[in-house]
C-alpha cells in the first residue's frame, strides 16, 4: 500500500518564530498591565511647532488606519482559507500581532490627542475585501498580498522614523521605538509570506504592483482625511 505524500509544511521564519515567543518590546509600555504609566505613555509634547505637530498627527492617523486595514485583511484571508489548517494557523499568528499593533495605536491616538481618520469604515471594508479576494485566488496569492502590503508598510514606517527625528520628549522617543518594533514585525510578516511561496502566486508582479499602489494611495489619503 502506498502511503500518501505528506503536504509540505508551511514554514515560519526564525524571526517570526522568535517574535511569537513572548518578548517585551517598547510596545509593552502600553500593553503590559504591570508597567506603571509614566510621562512617556501619558503625555504629549506641548512645544512642537505647528508643522511638526501636523507631521505627528498625520503619522499616527495613518499608522492607526493601516493597522485597522491590516487586521481586516487578515480577517478576510482567514474567512476564505480557514479550512486549510496550516495556512489558517499562520494567518492567525500574524493577525494576533496586528491586533496588538492596533491596541497600541489606539492608545497612542488617545495619548497624543489625534483625530482618527474619517476613512475608518472604508479601511475596514477595503481591507476585508482585499484579503478575501486575494485568498479566493489561492493561498499563494494571499501570501503575495501580505508581501505587498507589508513591503509598503515597512517603507512607510521607515519614512516616519526619519520624519520623527529630532524631538527628545520621552513620548516621542518611545513612539520612535514602537514604530521601529512594528516595522520589524511587519518585515517579519513579509519574510514569512515570501517563505510561504508568495512569489508563486499567479501574476505575482501585477498583483504586487496593484496592491502596492493601492496601499500608497490609501496612506496619502489617510494622512489628510
Amino acid at each position, binding site marked *: 500500500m502506498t502511503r500518501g505524500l505528506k503536504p509540505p509544511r508551511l514554514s515560519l521564519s526564525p524571526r517570526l518564530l522568535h517574535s511569537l515567543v513572548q518578548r517585551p518590546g517598547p510596545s509593552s509600555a502600553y500593553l503590559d498591565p504591570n508597567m506603571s504609566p509614566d510621562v512617556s505613555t501619558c503625555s504629549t509634547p506641548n512645544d512642537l511647532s505647528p508643522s511638526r505637530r501636523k507631521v505627528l498627527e498625520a503619522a499616527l492617523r495613518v499608522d492607526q488606519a493601516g493597522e485597522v486595514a491590516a487586521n481586516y485583511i487578515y480577517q478576510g484571508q482567514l474567512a476564505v482559507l480557514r479550512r486549510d489548517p496550516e495556512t489558517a494557523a499562520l494567518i492567525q499568528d500574524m493577525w494576533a500581532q496586528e491586533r496588538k499593533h492596533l491596541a497600541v495605536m489606539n492608545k497612542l*491616538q488617545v495619548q497624543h490627542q489625534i483625530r482618527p481618520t474619517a476613512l*475608518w*469604515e472604508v479601511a475596514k471594508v477595503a481591507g476585508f475585501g482585499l484579503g478575501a479576494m486575494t485568498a479566493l485566488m489561492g493561498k499563494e496569492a494571499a501570501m503575495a498580498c501580505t508581501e505587498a502590503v507589508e513591503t509598503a508598510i515597512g517603507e512607510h514606517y521607515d519614512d516616519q522614523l526619519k520624519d520623527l527625528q529630532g524631538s527628545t520628549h520621552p513620548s516621542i522617543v518611545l513612539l520612535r521605538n514602537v514604530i521601529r518594533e512594528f516595522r520589524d514585525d511587519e518585515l517579519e510578516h513579509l519574510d514569512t509570506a515570501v517563505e510561504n511561496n508568495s512569489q508563486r502566486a499567479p501574476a505575482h508582479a501585477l498583483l504586487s504592483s496593484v496592491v502596492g499602489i493601492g496601499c500608497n494611495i490609501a496612506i496619502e489619503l489617510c494622512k489628510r482625511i
Partner: protein
Amino acid sequence: MSIRQHGFTRTTLAHSVLSLPEPHFEPLSDSAVTTLFGEGDTARRTLINAWLDEGIVHIRTAALVSNVKDALLARLEYNVPALDYLTEAFALVASPGLGIPPLDLRPAVQHAASIADEACRVAGDTSIGPSWYTKRATLAAIYTAAELHQLASPQTAPGFLGSLFDSASDMQSVLSEAENSRSMLPRAGQRLPKVLVYFDTILQAGKCNSKRRAMGPVSVRAMNSLSV
C-alpha cells in the same frame, strides 16, 4: 474688561494697550491698530478670533471641570461678559470680507467643533474610530443650540444645556436598549418586524412620552403590516 465697555471694535484694540503689564500711556492710534491688526473689519475679526481662542483656554483652566457638561457650562459662562456684543460678532465672522459668498458657515462649524473637542479632551475622552466623530458632533450640536438659546435668554441657558444633555443620554439609552433587544431576537422560524421591537422598547422604556402620544391607538394588525 475693554470688550465689556466697547464691544468687539477697533476702540477695544486701541485701549487694550492700557491693560498690558507695562501699560501704554495712551490708546493706540487708528493707524497703529491697522498696522498691528489689519484695516477695517479685519481687525475686528482678529479680535473676535483671539477672544474665541481664549475661550478654549478658559475651558482648560476653569475650576471644577471634570466632565463634558461642566466644560460646556464653563464655556457658556465665558460668554456672559460679552453677551451684548456676541450676535454682531458672530455675524461679522460669518460675513467674508470680500462679500463672496454672502455667508460663510465654516467659522461657526469650526467654533463649535473646537469647543466640543476641547470639552472631550478635558473630560478625558478615550473614543476611537467613528465614535470619536459622533461624540464630538453631538456635543457641537448641543453647544450650538445652548449658545443660541443663551443669546436670547441668558438666565435659562444652563438649564437648557442640562435638558439637552438629559435628552441626549435618554436617546442613547433607548437606542442601546433597542440594539440589545434586536440582538436577542430569535433567529430561525420566527419572523418579527424589526420596527415592532423598536416600538416595544421605546414604550417599555417609558421615556419617550411624546412618541406614545403621537402613536395613539395603533392596532397590532397595523403594526404587523409594517416591515422594515
